[in-house]
Each structure stands twice: as structure tokens, then as C-alpha cells.
């Protein structure tokens, strides 16, 4: 297989496979959560589930003072690499074109040098996150192979994307193909790993808030 054939394969059939697994997997997992069902709450509602749920979705993004003090590194590094991912995924022109193809609309992009800087910061932060995980005895004890796999699948597209942008080591079609393939691996693993938090996060936060709202207490 030549490098252009490889690129055409990852842009074609491989992308199709990854899309089917990602979309079907995410939907089945979300439906699975919803169909778990809840026993009817016979207690009288003392407040609104909806407003409290929505409030929690937003408010839980801001750590409280004590949590921040206890886990400063985790929170700051988490914010940095998530922000970096947000910028690199959603504000780089070639990526926006992909979203436009899928959703039919687009938004303004950032200059590639800025996106590049965000990618570098994200990579460095993710490496620091891994070192922290390995050095923290409790965190290391709690870590499963799945956690390391998720870390790898997250950092790979950033590294391969950075290399593809700067064309280091291999020819451009090969580097681009490897980058797209790394994203496809991420998409395939997404529904079956903790990466699902990108979707379940909102459901979980809303649920926590809704319970408190129903009881009429602050979430």
C-alpha cells in the first residue's frame, strides 16, 4: 500500500468504520443509561428539578475553594489540557471543515500558529498529568489499564497532529494519514472507555442537581 493509498484508506473506509462505531456506541451507551430507569419518587417535590439540574451543569465547572486547595495540580492541569483540546479540535481550519461537512455549519478559525501553541501546551500538560498519576501512590493504585489507554489515545492525535503540521521525519501524506488514524482509534475506543465522560458528564451533573432540586436543598 502506497502512502497516498494509506491516506485515501484512512480518509475513506477507515473513517466510515470509526464513525459507525463511535456514533452507534455512544448512542447505545447513553440509551443504556436512560433505560436503567428510576423508581418513582413518592416524596413530595420541594423544588424544581430542572433549574437546579441546569445550575449544577454550570456550577460544577467551578471548583470550590477547598477542593482547589487540595487538588490544585489536578484541576489546573485538567483545565489546561481540556482547553488545549478544545482549541486544537474546534478552532483549526482543517478540523472546522470536517465539522462543516458533518453538521452543515462552521465557525471562525484561529491562526495555525496559535492552535499550534495550544497543542504544544496540551501535550506538555498531558505528559505532566501522566507523571503525576505515576508518582501519586493513591492515584497509581486506583489507575486501571483503561486509564492509561485513554491517556495514550488522547495524546496521540495531539502529537501526530503536531508532527504532521511541522512535517517531521516522514512524508506529508504518511504523517497526515497517521494523524487521522490516531483520531479514528480515539473515536473507536470512545464509547467503551472513560472518554464517554464527554457525554455522561452533563447527564451526571444534571442528575445530581435535579436530586437536590427535588428535595429543595442547595446542590
Amino acid at each position, binding site marked *: 500500500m502506497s502512502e497516498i493509498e494509506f491516506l485515501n484508506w484512512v*480518509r475513506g473506509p477507515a473513517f466510515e468504520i470509526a464513525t459507525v462505531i463511535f456514533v*452507534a456506541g455512544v448512542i447505545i451507551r447513553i440509551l443504556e443509561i436512560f433505560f436503567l430507569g428510576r423508581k418513582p419518587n413518592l416524596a413530595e417535590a420541594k423544588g424544581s428539578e430542572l433549574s437546579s439540574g441546569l445550575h449544577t451543569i454550570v456550577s460544577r465547572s467551578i471548583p470550590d475553594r477547598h477542593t482547589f486547595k487540595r487538588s490544585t495540580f489536578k484541576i489546573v492541569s485538567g483545565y489546561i489540557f481540556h482547553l488545549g483540546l478544545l482549541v486544537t479540535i474546534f478552532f483549526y481550519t482543517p478540523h472546522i471543515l470536517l465539522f462543516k*461537512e458533518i453538521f452543515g455549519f462552521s465557525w471562525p478559525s*484561529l491562526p*495555525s500558529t496559535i492552535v499550534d501553541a495550544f497543542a504544544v501546551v496540551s501535550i506538555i500538560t498531558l505528559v505532566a498529568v501522566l507523571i503525576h498519576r505515576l508518582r501519586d501512590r493513591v492515584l497509581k493504585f486506583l489507575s486501571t489499564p483503561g486509564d492509561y489507554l485513554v491517556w495514550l489515545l488522547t495524546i496521540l492525535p495531539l502529537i501526530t497532529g503536531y508532527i504532521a503540521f511541522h512535517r517531521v521525519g516522514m512524508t506529508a501524506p504518511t504523517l497526515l494519514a497517521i494523524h487521522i488514524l490516531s483520531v479514528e482509534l480515539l473515536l473507536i475506543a470512545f464509547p467503551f472507555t472513560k472518554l464517554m465522560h464527554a457525554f455522561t458528564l452533563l447527564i451526571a451533573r444534571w442528575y445530581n442537581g435535579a436530586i437536590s432540586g427535588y428535595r429543595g436543598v442547595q446542590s
Partner: protein
Amino acid sequence: MIEKKNLKDRTLGEAMQSQGISRRSFLKFCAATASMMALPPSMIPAIAEALEKARKPSVIWLSFQECTGCTESLTRSHTATIENLIFDSISLDYHHTLQAASGEAAEEAREAAMKENWGEYLLVVDGSIPTKDMGYSTIAGISNLDMFLQTAAGAAAIISVGTCAAFGGIPHAHPNPTGAYSVYDIIKMYGNSELDGISSASITNNSGGSVINKPIITVPGCPPIPVVITGVLTHYLTFGTIPELDHLGRPKAFYGQSIHDRCYRRPFYDKGLFAETFDDEGAKKGWCLYKLGCKGPTTYNACATTKWNNGTSFPIESGHPCLGCSEPHFWDGGGFYKALSIPTIDIPTTAVYAAAGAAAAGVALGALNKSKKSNADKKHTNTTIDDLEKE
């Protein structure tokens, strides 16, 4: 006949004098060639000396499944340039598009050239070679495959001109109805086959030779840049060797950098300034054509530096995205106007089908779980003290 022989025996230097080309313009050409091929300036006198003394190499040019665009590109020049002269000065012993002879006379010329220069002639091929049915493309009743193998056996080197000869090109594009392959693939597939069985192999001094170890230089492009082939010929005439090649057999001096890296519109890409359509403000301002499907980032060629039509411009300069024509399988890489980051397949439709299927599966699984749960509830019985005492 005598006149013809004299012409053939003339060196390039003599040919240039007779054409009225000044030494100044000749040296300028040598300097430009040295610079293009990334050779040190100290090599310029060596190039000049070698070219002046060089006798015309015998060249056999075979055209197979092609559109003649390559020959057009390489021979069309509006002024009498030295590039032109090099073309004129090589002994094109056989080129069935350009030669006056046809039929058996033409084939005789090829066979004579092969006999006379066995092991020394350059074989230039444009067009891909069909393998599915030998009748798809024949010349004077000889299949392309047979003609290629016979001629390649006595060649010093093979130059695959154009993307069809280099990588299979358009005939090789899906679904490849003629079973077309590139020169390199044909050598890989048939290179070991003995040529004894081929009817006209006996015309050569060395029938039965193998073509597997012939150096192959690929000069892809649809069509390729004329100056690239003159550069390759100059290198061959000067050093008697072929230039340094990349992993696809392309001369590194010309195919070493991508169009994107040498594109004058690259700063716009970096700034995030793109033409959205062919007639918007961005297009008028000359912004990057990535969004209009430019394949410059994955294409290696010299268009952005050597340019076309005597250095006038190249496609991107004319406002059209690069098609990636010097890369293998460029024809099968999705639409020409589809950006590189967009998949070649219809992702939204795939996603909708996947979502619909998953929703149905999810609901079915949910219903199954519910019925399992309710069955379990129904079968549930309380354990009494009597049950425990039964033990």
C-alpha cells in the same frame, strides 16, 4: 543518410553553436540547472563542459495508455530555449507520436536503435501498461507489455514520464478496467520473466536479459514539468549517473519539498485566511486555497518554484487548487474540490444510519432488560424460615 549520421554524431556544444545559442545563455542554463538540482556552484563548469562534449544519447520513447499530454508538455515551448535544444539534441530514435514514420518502418527504427545502442540507450515511457487483455493497447500489433519488456531489457535506465507511467495514473484509477500498472509495478510483476519467449527478442544482441535491475527514474505529474526532465537528462549527461531519488523514485532535487511548503500563499494558511469560493473576496486577494480542495500539503513537486510556461505561473498562482497530480492514486483521493481534512466518503449519511441503527438497538436492548427484570420480579419468592430449616 550521411546528413542524418552527421547530426547524430554532433556533440551538444556543436548543436548549440549551429542553433546560434550564445555561450552566456548556455552558462546561465547550466547555473540554473545546478541550482535547481541543489548542486554546488562549483559544479557549473563541470556541467557546462560535460554538456558541451556530450554526444546525443539514444533515447527510445514509448507511449502506452496515455493522453499525449506529457509529450505536449515536454515539447511545447514558445521560444527556442536550451531545454528545447536538449530535447532536440537527444536522438529520439523512436517516439511514435513525434516521428514521421509509422507502422513497420517505425518499429524497424526502434529495433535498429536498440541493436545499435544495446545497454546504453535511455528508455522514456509515458502511459501505463495494461495487463488484463493484451489487446487493449497495441502498437504495430505488439502489446504494450511485450514492447516494454523487450525495450527495457537493453536500456541503461528507464525514465517514467508522467503519472500514468510513474504510478498508473488515470487508467489505473478505480476500477482500473484495463488492469493498468506503472512501469515500476510492471518491472516488479514481470521483471524476472525470461524474454526468450517473446517473438522479437531475437532482434537484440542480448536476448534473454532480465529487466529487473534497471534503474527507474519517475518524473510524475499530469503532465510533468518540462524542466524536470531536462534536469534529469542534464544530470545523466554530466555525471553519467541518475540523480538522487526519493522513495518513489522521484529526483529529490525536484520532488524534495511539498507544494504547500514552497507555496507563496502559505502565509495566508498560517494566518487562517482562506478563499471560501472561487470568486469571493479571499479568492481575489489571493488567499490560501486549502478550503477549495488544494492538495498542496500532500503533494511533492517543483511547480511552486520552477513554475510553468517559461516561469509564468503555476496552478495555485492562477487561482486553482493543486490537484496533487504528481502523487500516486491522486485520481482516487476523493473530489478535487474536497479539502484534505474532509473524508472521501459521505460521513453525515453514515452517521445518520449508524444513529438510527443504534437507537433501534438501544431501545430493543432496553426493552429486553426491562422484560428480564420484570420476569425476575415475577419469579421472585421470599425465603421463609421453613425453607432454611429444610436443610
